[in-house]
């Protein structure tokens, strides 16, 4: 424990040292500015866009219209020919630029600030319009330097609208297209005491949007505390961000509007919220799966991600979900204490490490493969599947029974052959490493979300490096104990106390098994729970039979019958929990085809289209918990909903194209078409009966 703390402190200290030293401003200018235009000329009465181009020195930044905690946006004072006018700057979505404990909003690198320019109807074709501006730009790294520029552009006045500028036309158009857009969003905010402001935003553009990394940039510098994290809660029609209140909320006051920009899933929208209750559909689905922040967030490099993964692996050792497994490992290490067993302890430590790393890499490989196959899985997915949880619960039970001395895993391996005698323990250590990882994996989700999310968006090789680093970090403390003679020597010598210790350690394992059963109960129903309990009893029986067989073999007798009975009992137990239950409330679905959809729409019927696949875990979960329920079945009957199923279990190019046209790379995808025709409404990927019922009710209106 002390070793762990020391290691962690060392690593964190090393990270802190990489903080930038005091900046020498160096020679200016730190930003170059000029004017560019999207057309090669301007016609009388025409409005085009010009743009202030800023080329900012690396590591320096300039500011958005709300600079955040410090700084100020660029200011332009125009000198224009008579009758020419400029409009407001079209501010591109900024990035977040943290400065110590403060937060700034701004730009780095090259940025275009588009500005509308209108020529008067009286402008004389053939003349040159001289557009000039004095620009004051505050440019900052750690310190700030105000820079003043004189910029100018001579634009020919043309009789007819001029062609687009080949260089700047597309770039300015792109900047305008990427800028926050007005959108059909409904938004409201509510102050919750002095600690939080809930900003709830709903609207069609937010349906099915990837809310991970969503961020609200307030237009006013006094609305919120910029540096505080913004907690995200998703809903079927939008999201709720919990913001830290700024000066506007001081002394029990609240602003009349909370306006700004919502950046979400690579897009940005203008938001203006008034005080009031949250629009419906803006909460209830929990926070988004963690992933690398987008929109100005620094990209994690592979090395950084690997280092963080290693640290994360170390921290995992402190997680309650792996503690019982480590308790087991501690017992095994204690068995190899003492100087005479040093070589064996090293081998054990390495086997445990290998087990942990191989399992992490294996799980990562499985995850990458599943993602490639189109399944919407996240890290920790293995515990989303009730059969896996059930199997793990039984496994924990078996381990606990082993610790209690009902049967002996090591002994049976030794009995299997003399050649395995020395390696039996190694296999056990490897297996312990494997088990620890499988149970610890869900604990990694909150801690390692950023690194793992990043890893899963990378090429497979990079992802595997990160996961291997996680495994190494996880295994490091035990491997270190096995290798550092001083530490090993401090471990108590083996003796009769070990048997007592081992039996005591069985109880955390019984606890772990019960915890998993509790998880299983949340995911399934009473019938399944009864089955799992029955399976548990059968496992205990199998363990007892195996123990009996082992005792006979130890006495030199044959125990084939008992062994076989134990094996059969184990298989029965597993089959009981993994066997799929008959789908009682199965809805009858027609196979999907675009022609059938059009036909049903022509009949004026609402249509529910389920894009699914047999191998898609979340599709199956949705099917059981939401679609194939009596509530949904009766809602479908009431609203005469036609149910179409697009089965993607086998590759189908037509369905893949349909998915792509809705911006999806895989299943599940649920679409509800209204009886009045039109485009389908996309439902969330995690369904509840309520969501489906509400959607079909809306479709029948």
């Amino acid at each position: 424990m002390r070793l762990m703390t020391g290691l962690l402190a060392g690593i964190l200290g090393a990270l802190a040292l990489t903080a930038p030293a005091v900046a020498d401003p160096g020679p200016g200018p730190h930003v170059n500015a000029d004017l560019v235009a999207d057309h090669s000329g301007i016609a009388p009465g025409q409005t085009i866009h010009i743009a202030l181009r800023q080329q900012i020195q690396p590591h320096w930044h300039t500011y958005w219209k709300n600079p955040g905690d410090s700084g100020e946006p660029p200011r332009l004072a125009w000198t224009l020919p008579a009758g020419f006018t400029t409009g407001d700057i079209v501010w591109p979505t900024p990035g977040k630029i943290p400065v110590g404990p403060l937060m700034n909003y701004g730009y780095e690198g090259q940025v275009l600030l588009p500005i509308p320019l209108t020529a008067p109807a009286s402008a004389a074709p053939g003349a040159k319009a001289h557009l000039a501006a004095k620009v004051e730009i505050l440019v900052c790294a750690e310190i700030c330097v105000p820079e003043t520029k004189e910029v100018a552009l001579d634009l020919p006045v043309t009789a007819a609208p001029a062609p687009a500028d080949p260089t700047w036309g597309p770039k300015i158009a792109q900047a305008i297209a990427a800028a926050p857009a007005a959108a059909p969003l409904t938004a409201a905010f509510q102050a919750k005491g002095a600690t939080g402001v809930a900003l709830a935003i709903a609207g069609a553009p937010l349906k099915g949007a990837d809310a991970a990394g969503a961020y609200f940039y307030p237009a006013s510098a006094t609305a919120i505390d910029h540096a505080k994290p913004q907690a995200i809660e998703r809903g079927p029609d939008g999201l709720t961000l919990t913001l830290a209140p700024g000066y506007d909320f001081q002394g029990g006051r609240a602003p009349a509007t909370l306006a700004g920009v919502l950046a979400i899933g690579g897009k940005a929208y203008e938001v203006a919220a008034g005080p009031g209750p949250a629009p419906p559909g803006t909460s209830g689905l929990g926070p988004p799966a963690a992933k690398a922040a987008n929109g100005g967030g620094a990209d994690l490099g592979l090395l950084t991600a690997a280092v963080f993964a290693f640290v994360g692996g170390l921290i995992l050792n402190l997680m309650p979900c792996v503690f019982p497994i480590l308790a087991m490992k501690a017992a095994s290490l204690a068995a190899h204490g003492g100087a005479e067993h040093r070589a064996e302890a090293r081998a054990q430590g390495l086997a445990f490490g290998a087990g942990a790393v191989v399992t992490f890499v294996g799980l990562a490989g499985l995850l990458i493969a599943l993602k490639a196959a189109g399944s919407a899985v996240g890290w920790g997915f293995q515990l989303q599947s009730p059969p896996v949880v059930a199997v793990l619960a039984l496994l924990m039970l078996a381990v606990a029974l082993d610790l209690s001395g009902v049967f002996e895993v090591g002994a049976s391996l030794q009995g299997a052959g003399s050649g395995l005698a020395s390696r039996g323990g190694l296999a056990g250590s490897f297996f312990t490493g494997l088990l620890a990882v499988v149970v610890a994996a869900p604990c990694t989700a909150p801690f390692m979300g950023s690194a793992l999310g990043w890893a899963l968006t990378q090429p497979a090789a990079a992802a595997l490096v990160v996961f291997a680093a996680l495994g190494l970090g996880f295994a490091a403390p035990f491997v270190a104990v096995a290798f550092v003679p001083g530490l090993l020597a401090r471990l108590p010598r083996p003796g009769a106390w070990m048997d007592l210790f081992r039996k005591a350690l069985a109880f955390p394992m019984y606890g772990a098994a019960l915890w998993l059963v509790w998880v299983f109960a949340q995911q399934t129903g009473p019938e399944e729970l009864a089955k799992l309990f029955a399976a548990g009893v059968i496992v205990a029986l199998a363990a007892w039979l195996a123990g009996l067989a082992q005792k006979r073999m130890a006495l030199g007798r044959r125990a084939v019958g008992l062994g076989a009975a134990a094996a059969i009992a184990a298989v029965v137990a597993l089959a009981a929990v993994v066997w799929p239950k008959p789908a009682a409330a199965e809805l009858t679905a027609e196979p999907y085809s675009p022609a059938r959809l059009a036909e049903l729409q022509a009949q004026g019927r609402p249509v529910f289209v389920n894009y699914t696949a047999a191998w898609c875990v979340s599709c199956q979960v949705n099917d059981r918990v939401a679609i194939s329920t009596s509530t949904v079945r009766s809602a479908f009957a009431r609203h005469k909903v036609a149910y179409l199923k697009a089965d993607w279990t086998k590759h189908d190019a037509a369905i893949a194209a349909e998915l792509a046209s809705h911006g999806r790379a895989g299943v599940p995808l649920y679409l509800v078409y209204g009886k009045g025709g039109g485009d389908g409404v996309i439902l969330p990927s995690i369904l509840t009966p309520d969501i489906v019922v509400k959607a079909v009710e809306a479709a029948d209106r």
Partner: protein
Amino acid sequence: MIARRTLLAAAVATLAAGPALALPQLGQPAPAFTATDDHGKPVTLSQFAGRTVVLEWTNSGCPYVGKHYNSGTMQALQRKETADGVVWLTVSSSAPGMQGYFTAPTARKWAAKKHWAGTDLLLDSAGKIGREYGARNTPHMFVIDKAGKVAYMGGIDDRPYEDPESLKGAKPYVAMALADLKAGRPVAVPTSQPYGCSVKYNSAD
């Protein structure tokens, strides 16, 4: 299960955000502090109980601080208010090695050169007072009334610009708040946008 994960995630998010700044609350007692001034003398907020106190965050290298000191408007306000019995504490929270870091001698030198006219110049290079007050800018201004409660927080005026030209016609929020307190009126504009450079806290802690 879900609740526990959410809690964990929230805890991690909070940790990841690093040392966040707390906000003092308007109308609530101002956070107490003890600091060392530019003569090595300890100064506590409580020793000024019963008097109106102004807190001004400064950074000698910040162009926004320069706007108010080079034009003399800051010193003029300091002279006027201290003559009226107001306590004016200028605080430097720049960390060692950062812009505007003050040792006692460099602080005294700067004060003499600028004809600084406040009551005391506090050295807070650890950023302790700055963090307690949520000071984010130089100059960031706070006014504490005679009852020891926070009466104003924000900018010195309504012109969040570095350009000295912007001083013309600015609404002097701090002077207005002090006038309201002297007249026994509630402060009409109790908060505004603090503006200027970021306070140069030690970013590593």
